[in-house]
């Protein structure tokens, strides 16, 4: 279903969202660092943002979140499911929507993760169209456009937004704000199409992913891993900013009374030394080289048919060592 | 008969010290106060370090007066490069130093000194008898730490105060919270005054004291560019070497200072006595009430002076915050700095007394030469003198209690001055 929202109606539409829950939108923090933060008005957001540093996965898999509290005296673990707040993520890009689709598969399909699912079910996703910068390669990954996985998707037009409705929830929002939306006319559709076409031409960065898995396999002993690892800090930034990375660690903390406490999970990274370490000191990926190779292999592999990389460029942009993901992959493929 | 009274390890002080009094019959042969905290050679290894990170290293000289070191260091650098900071920065710095004073004095007065008088080895054990008081003291100390946390970034070795300003300005909400906590804990500061005014201060360590403190300007405070001496003279801090005359002694890692050939004292008592007219409000009233108890020659009354400063600093934190809030907090960033080959000297009143930092920089802004003089070094000779007086009392008035617990006379003397800052 397609609709149109005039620019003039946008503030009212946005205001109305506030009634549905807490609204989070892209806010500029510093330089090129954006973050999804709670916003009260459209002015706080920068809808022309390229990418947030921390991807939207933070809403569903908390960076540090309590899973259980426990009480030794009462001998119970209580799942830490607080009041579930309705959340609207406003202005999410297509690549991040794809990433969430992938996380949904992992966390909600088989042996559903309660903590993720509860939050995910309480969330409305409103996408927004974007333009690539020199680090974006979502086009190559097939994630530059989302056909599903959102509730509403806004495509900017000269005088408003061309709105795609992606779910029943999205449809309800339109219904509730009926007077603000009009039917998209032919001109709007033309503009939308033109914009999409133009946008595709803006991509400069490409990565050939055909047969990538075999290329990675064949490059298992390649010197590229060692060379890259020499420059790498093993700092984990690439994983933590990746919208599809999902490793987490779990730690138990006991309180002052030594009887109650909590089980906390926090984001982990396969670039960190402990990731493959088991008791007794054996490490299955003891060197940075092995960890780096594992990361690239993981990113290049498929999870239920979806690539574990959506081409958002974060790992390259935020890597303090300026290690370039696409360049490394091109070395693997043999293009560089 | 030769006797040696020795306190192997001074406790409840920051750092390590030992006192040895050698008595031969009626005569005191020798008094050695050794600070045997290992030397760390800051002045040596700071050479070639770029000015911007100098305060980050120098504040690690001492944990309990970390902000004092930090600010002395920053101000010395700013003097070398002729930096003028904004009013907001000055206010935040003032707030920080008062916060440090509260934290340090609360710890010192309640946890280190008070147990001496009440007969406990420490505050934790004291808490079994005086739980309410100890908890209140901890809350007061925490209020000081809160200032550190919010203004400086953490309780010990904060990082937010920089050359030229503050990296991040605290939020209005945080400042309001400090204000609230300060107001709530003020009674505990007043309680400290009350307690030390009521306690009988032993007189065994009485002897002549020369006092020194910074001239804070119009208001009682802890920063200034001139040094006041109890002989009525006033000197620019740049002349600190003539004021302190440091020398090395074999038995102690701390250097010993002297002024015109005599030992001298720095710290709360000198500050309060030399700047009494600048006290205001509750602190001024409390000073008036108890001024007879504060005697220049009895070092042990330093604890009462600290208590008065506690009250003063609590009030000043509130005042500073009011001023900051009414001016409106601004994200000013740091003042632009033009480096040049130059020298800068600054002093700050650390909780234990005057602290000097003196740097010489090359044209790139890296340290060529550095000199730091700590309150402990300045007080060391005076402490020896006090120990000597205490020991003398011990021999001439062989009070059973005093003799049996030789510590008893030496400990409060120690805790009048908390050592540290080598």
């Amino acid at each position, binding site marked *: 279903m397609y609709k149109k929202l005039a620019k003039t109606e946008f503030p009212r539409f946005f205001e109305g969202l506030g009634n549905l829950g807490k609204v989070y939108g892209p806010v500029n923090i510093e330089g090129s660092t954006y*973050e999804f933060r709670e916003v009260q008005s459209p002015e706080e957001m920068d809808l022309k943002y390229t990418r947030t540093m921390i991807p939207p996965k933070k809403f569903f898999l908390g960076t540090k979140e309590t899973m259980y509290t426990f009480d030794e005296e009462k001998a119970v673990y209580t799942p830490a499911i607080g009041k579930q707040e309705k959340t609207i993520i406003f202005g999410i890009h297509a690549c991040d929507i794809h990433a969430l689709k992938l996380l949904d598969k992992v966390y909600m399909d088989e042996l559903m993760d309660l903590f993720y699912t509860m939050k995910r079910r309480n969330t409305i996703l409103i996408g927004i169209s974007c333009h690539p910068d020199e680090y974006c390669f979502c086009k190559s990954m097939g994630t530059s456009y989302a056909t599903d996985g959102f509730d509403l998707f806004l495509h900017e037009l000269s005088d408003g937004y061309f709105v795609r409705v992606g779910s029943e929830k999205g449809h309800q929002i339109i219904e509730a704000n009926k007077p603000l939306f009009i039917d998209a006319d032919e001109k709007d559709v033309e503009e939308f199409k033109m914009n999409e076409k133009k946008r595709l031409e803006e991509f400069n960065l490409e990565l050939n992913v055909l047969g990538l898995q075999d290329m990675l396999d064949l490059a298992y002993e390649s010197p590229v891993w060692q060379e890259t690892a020499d420059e790498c800090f093993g700092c984990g930034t690439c994983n933590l900013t990746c919208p599809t990375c999902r490793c987490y660690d779990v730690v138990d903390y006991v309180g002052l009374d030594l009887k109650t406490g909590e089980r906390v999970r926090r984001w982990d990274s396969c670039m960190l030394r402990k990731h493959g370490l088991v008791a007794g000191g054996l490490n299955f990926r003891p060197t940075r080289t092995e960890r780096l190779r594992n990361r690239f292999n993981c990113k290049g592999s498929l999870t239920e048919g979806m690539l574990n990389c959506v081409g958002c460029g974060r790992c390259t942009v935020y890597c303090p060592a300026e290690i370039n993901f696409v360049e490394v992959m091109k070395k693997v493929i043999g293009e560089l | 008969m030769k006797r040696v009274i020795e306190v192997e390890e001074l406790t409840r002080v920051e750092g390590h010290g030992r006192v040895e009094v050698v008595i031969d019959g009626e005569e005191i042969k020798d008094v050695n106060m050794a600070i045997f905290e290992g030397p*760390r*050679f800051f002045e040596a290894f700071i050479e070639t370090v770029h000015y911007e990170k100098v305060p980050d290293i120098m504040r690690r000289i001492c944990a309990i007066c970390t902000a004092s070191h930090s600010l002395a260091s920053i101000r010395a650098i700013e003097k070398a490069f002729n930096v003028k900071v904004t009013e907001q920065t000055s206010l935040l710095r003032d707030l920080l130093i008062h916060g440090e004073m509260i934290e340090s004095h609360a710890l010192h007065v309640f946890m280190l000194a008070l147990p001496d008088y009440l007969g406990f080895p420490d505050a934790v054990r004291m808490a079994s008898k005086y739980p309410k008081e100890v908890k209140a003291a901890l809350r007061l100390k925490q209020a000081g730490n809160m200032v550190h946390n919010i203004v400086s970034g953490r309780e010990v070795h904060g990082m937010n105060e920089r050359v030229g300003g503050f990296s991040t300005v605290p939020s209005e909400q945080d400042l309001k919270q400090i204000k609230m906590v300060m107001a709530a804990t003020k009674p505990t500061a007043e309680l400290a005054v009350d307690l030390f005014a009521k306690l009988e201060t032993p007189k065994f360590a009485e002897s002549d004291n020369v006092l020194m403190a910074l001239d804070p300007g119009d208001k009682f405070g802890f920063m200034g560019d001139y040094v006041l001496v109890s002989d009525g003279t006033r000197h620019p801090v740049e002349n600190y070497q003539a004021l302190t005359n440091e020398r090395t002694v074999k038995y102690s890692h701390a250097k010993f200072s002297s002024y015109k050939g005599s030992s001298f004292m720095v710290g709360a008592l000198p500050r309060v006595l030399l700047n009494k007219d600048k006290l205001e409000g509750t602190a001024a009233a409390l000073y008036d009430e108890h001024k007879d108890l504060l005697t220049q020659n009895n070092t042990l009354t330093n604890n009462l002076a600290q208590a008065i400063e506690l009250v003063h600093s609590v009030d000043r934190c509130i005042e500073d915050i009011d001023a900051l809030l009414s001016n409106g907090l601004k994200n000013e960033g740091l003042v632009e700095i033009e480096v040049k080959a130059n020298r800068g000297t600054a002093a700050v009143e650390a909780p234990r007394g005057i602290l000097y930092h003196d740097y010489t920089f090359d044209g790139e802004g890296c340290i060529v030469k550095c000199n730091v003089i700590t309150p402990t070094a300045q007080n060391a000779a005076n402490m020896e003198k006090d120990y000597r007086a205490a020991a003398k009392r011990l021999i001439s008035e062989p009070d059973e209690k005093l003799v049996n617990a030789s510590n008893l006379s030496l400990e409060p003397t120690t805790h009048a001055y908390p050592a540290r800052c080598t």
Partner: protein
Amino acid sequence: MAKPKLGIFSLTGCGGDQLMILNMENELLDLLSYFEIKDFQEGSSYHEDVELDIALVEGSVSTETDLKRLKEIREKSKTLIALGDCAIGGCVQAMRNGQMSMAERMKKVYGVEEDYYDVLEPKGLSAHVKVDLEIPGCPIEKTEIFRAITSLLHGDLPETIDYPVCVECKLNGYPCVLVEKGMPCLGPLTTAGCDARCPGLGLDCIGCRGPIPDEANAAAELDVLLEKGYDEKYIINRLRFFGGNFEDIQKLTKKISERRNKTEGNE
């Protein structure tokens, strides 16, 4: 069950780690009530020379006296915990290790000869005795000491951290000062646990929790900062603030000064 016997000791340092324990105003009394405190130099005159279950030791070994005391403490303690950077890597006083001799330092600061005092080149505890657990920080973090103590009381050693500050920057969503502002941040090399305090305030990490042992890639940091326009002397000084005793950093210093000597020789 008998309360475990605890001793808190300090060698050469700033006293900050003991102070951090005293700074746990909210928990201090409760926490210490689980123990019999046999020694706490900074906080108590009580002292009893007995076998200890747990010894917390702050400060570096910088004098013969330190070394002697450390050995005594080790001898009588079941679990010995090194508190803070001084006790782990020597902290700032180890900055010139391998660069400036003790004789030079003595001359500079005291104007005296080498044997005037019993000084040693500052080292962490593990250079001399077996250490059961290291809690990094300059100073240590309250949460970490809290967790260590509660874990110990609960019967096991706490989780140790060996990932860099960058992780905490990300978990907190702090903008990277290295990437965004080109500041010479040592976060990528530095043991986390401070919750990225400095980047959180818009400052570059100076590495106060020490380089991650056997993992910190100092050579990469040098390259990154050189590229950002910092000079070698500046970078090396910086790496050394808290890394003077770390092998990789010493090697790097040596390599660079050799290279410099060579080019100067050629000129």
